[in-house]
């Protein structure tokens, strides 16, 4: 054996070498212990990487990934829902013409988690109650470094209970809680987003029993969560969006 190529050595590690070439490589390795040691290390890398990441194959696939549909289908469904709700043209344009961009799915999960933790709370669902609404909004605005508004959802049957400051992966989070006459609660999660300001379409995610509509508007991500039907939540999400973007 005169020489072998680097490509052949890698192919030997990966088991993709043509059968006839194996013996030649093995003869080479027998007389080149440094190469033999190097290939042993590469084979070990393959095996460790597989041990590390193969378990992911057995994880349940998140529902949000199974729910991905062709855009055409989504567009028609969205359009139908929008007409059914009698929403404005601006919305239609927003939902359909804006290409789906990266909306962190993590935003939906963080919001759903916060909802699950605080919505069932009986005695202390919020830090600051609605009787100090002005103080609440001023305080949260200051912490997030923007001018926040607590949307008015009374016409849809949901009254503001109050809010709290949370800590999210991207810094402070404003968390507003609403409740209807039957005690059904919705929460609005507002978090500053990293990176360049951008806008995204509404997205829906089902996180266990919690439905979440979420979107990014400029520097901020918004997520509305509740254990209610998707169409009901969409109505509220639309009202929230319109009030925040008059």
């Amino acid at each position, binding site marked *: 054996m005169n020489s072998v190529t680097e*490509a052949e050595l*890698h192919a030997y590690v990966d088991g993709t070498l043509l059968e006839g070439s194996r013996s030649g490589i093995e003869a080479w390795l027998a007389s080149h212990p440094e190469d033999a040691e190097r290939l042993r290390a590469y084979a070990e*890398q*393959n095996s*460790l990487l597989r041990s*590390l*990441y193969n378990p992911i*194959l057995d994880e349940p*696939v998140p529902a949000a990934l199974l729910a991905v549909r062709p855009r055409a289908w989504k567009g028609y469904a969205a359009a139908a829902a929008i007409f059914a709700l009698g929403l404005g043209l601006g919305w239609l344009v927003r939902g359909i013409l804006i290409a789906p961009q990266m909306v962190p*799915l993590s935003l939906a999960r963080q919001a759903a988690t916060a909802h699950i933790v605080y919505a069932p709370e009986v005695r202390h669902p919020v830090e600051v109650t609605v009787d100090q609404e002005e103080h609440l909004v001023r305080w949260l605005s200051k912490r997030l470094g923007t001018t926040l508004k607590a949307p008015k959802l009374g016409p849809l049957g949901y009254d503001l209970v109050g809010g709290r400051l949370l800590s999210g992966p991207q810094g402070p989070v404003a968390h507003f809680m609403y409740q209807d006459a039957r005690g059904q609660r919705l929460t609005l999660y507002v978090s500053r987003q990293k990176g360049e300001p951008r806008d995204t379409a509404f997205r829906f995610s089902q996180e266990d029993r919690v439905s979440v509509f979420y979107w990014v508007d400029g520097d901020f991500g918004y997520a509305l969560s509740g254990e209610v039907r998707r169409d009901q939540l969409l109505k509220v999400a639309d009202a929230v969006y319109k009030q925040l973007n008059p």
Partner: protein
Amino acid sequence: MDRQSIIEHIPRLRRYARALVGDRYIADDLVQDTLERAWNKFSLWRQGSDLRAWLFTIMHNVFVNQARRRRYEIEQAMEELPAVGVRATQGDQLELEDVDRALRALTLEQREVVLLIAIEQLTYDEVGRALGIPIGTVMSRLSRGRERMRQLLGDPAAVPLKVVK
């Protein structure tokens, strides 16, 4: 071609995405965007050709387009979270964590090639087609990536604790 066939590939896409970006949520976002792109471009997929390779090509394109914009977020996420579970006391677990840190020290280009070969077990030709690069480039990235990991693993002090670009 039905929906089911794309769905069957989701676990593999998740595995590769997780290995590529480290953080599970960012990885699932990458998978989500890949699936959306795949559905939208489905008419471009040639019946009978390798669906898996096509999906990896799409993921690569989505990843590259977003990598620049998201590099900062990815780095942050990796600094905040260990890429795999909690540090256990067993030697095996430490070894896995070391290999993962070494993987993070590769350039994104090297990491893609190493992972498609090690984890997905694509052939060198398939990797070249998926990434849109000549086979010679596949081999040089593979060779450099593996050698860099070997050096880092041989000398643990050389493995950076944080990703340095």
